[in-house]
């Protein structure tokens, strides 16, 4: 102090009432700020979680798509397998039927069975045996039947029987089955 013999008392700018008001005001502000920060954090966490879920959803969709493709592929394979099984069964039945057709007197050397044709190689004691016991059933099955005979030393005949099914016949045959 330059002129005063005493120094001024410290001034309490904030009175008791004002201090109380400020305290509650500050507490309110802190609570508001805290709530805001909590909500902000929660919003951020929710957005992050939503992005994560969206990413996971996209990943799952991709997986589902891949699995769909695999299922289709498997279904196709199943169909193919079933078709093969059916074909094998048909083939087996056809072969059994073929062998049932062949009489005991005729000896088959070779048979080439295809989807619409059957070519038989064998020997027959004579032509009549073949004509009545094998050729007749074959003609009832196939549309076109061609037979060639070759005499062999023991008096028997070697034959080659080519039998063909036309497309319509095949369809009709499948429908019959």
């Amino acid at each position, binding site marked *: 102090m330059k*002129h005063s*013999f005493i120094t001024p008392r410290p001034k309490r700018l904030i009175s008791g009432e004002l201090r109380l008001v400020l305290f509650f005001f500050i507490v309110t502000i802190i609570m508001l700020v805290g709530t805001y920060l909590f909500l902000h954090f929660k919003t951020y966490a929710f957005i992050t979680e939503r992005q994560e879920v969206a990413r996971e959803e996209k990943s799952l969709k991709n997986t589902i798509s891949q699995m769909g493709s695999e299922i289709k592929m498997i279904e196709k394979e199943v169909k193919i397998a079933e078709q093969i099984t059916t074909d094998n069964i048909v083939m087996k039945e056809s072969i059994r039927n073929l062998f049932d057709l062949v009489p005991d007197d005729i000896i088959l050397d070779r048979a080439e069975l295809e989807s619409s044709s059957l070519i038989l190689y064998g020997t027959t004691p004579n032509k009549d045996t073949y004509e009545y016991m094998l050729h007749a059933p074959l003609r009832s099955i196939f549309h076109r039947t061609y037979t060639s005979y070759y005499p062999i030393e023991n008096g028997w005949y070697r034959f080659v029987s080519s039998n063909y099914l036309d497309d319509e016949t095949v369809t009709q045959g499948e429908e019959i089955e």
Partner: protein
Amino acid sequence: MIAWLYQKIFIAIIPDGGEYDVRIVTLKQKKLLSKESRHYGGPSAHEDMLVYLRKQIDLSPLYYIAILNPGLHQGAMAGCSLHDIADELSGAKTLCRNGKWLLYSSILEIDTLKQRYSSIGLDFIFSPFSIIERFFADKIGTGFALYALAQKDSFSVAFFDDGKLEYAHHYPMHAHEGAASIEDGSGIGFSVGVEEDTASEKGISLEDIESLDDLDIIDELDNLSDIEDLDSLEDIAEFSDDQLTLEEKRISLPYSSEIKQEMSGFNDDYTRFEFIQKTLSYFYGSEYCNNRFVETVYIADAYGSGGELKRYLEEELFLNVLIRRIDMGDEVISLAMSEEEEL
């Protein structure tokens, strides 16, 4: 930080012989909002004033209460050598001014004053010599002269030479309610006021002076200067002798209050004249003089009755006298503001 929200209230208390002048200035961000003055007199003046001030200081927590020190044991002296040791040695509070001179006041009186205003508190206690220094700031740096502050209940005299205080003395005019007790208590351990001791040693006492012929100063002035007309000082002996007669007459004659006031003014002016005369006498006879002589007296008149004093000084001591009317409230407020700015 939040001080700008509040009004600043500066309160100046001027004790005036048992009465009080109060000045209240309200500022906000250095802008004057209001200025109010009140005067309290009568037996309950102090209590009434405190009640009023308590209401005022409730308006803002940022208030400063300044008071002009009414203590008897105060003064100023040249040099700051006693500044650091005065507290321990003599029970005086000192303030060093510019490293050249110091203000002092009795610690006991300051404590008593603080105790007296404990219900509202005090922030600044100013010496009358600070008022003189501030009020005559444009004059004290211009040369050697005598400066005085005339209040109703005290008279402060100081010699300044180019802004440096050479000698000073504080005279109480009348004993009043608080001063008597202060005076009684302050006799213990207060001795910084070397001027008072020296003055008593010189044997100058108002009671002992019956006429100006008895004053040693006249002889000293005769020795020290070429002034030959000092004999005319006898002309004013009427103010000492006749004053008693007037007082006696006042008892029997129905004087109006104006006449009483006028007579009181005459008496006070003469008393102040005697104080100046006594101070000059001591100064010229002391080591402070250094062959310097006072030609001009600047008087700050706080009570508005300095006309006779001017005439006495001019006619009896041949001094150039300049009297300025001073508003003590404004000056104390101004000092308080300057102190507050430095906080």
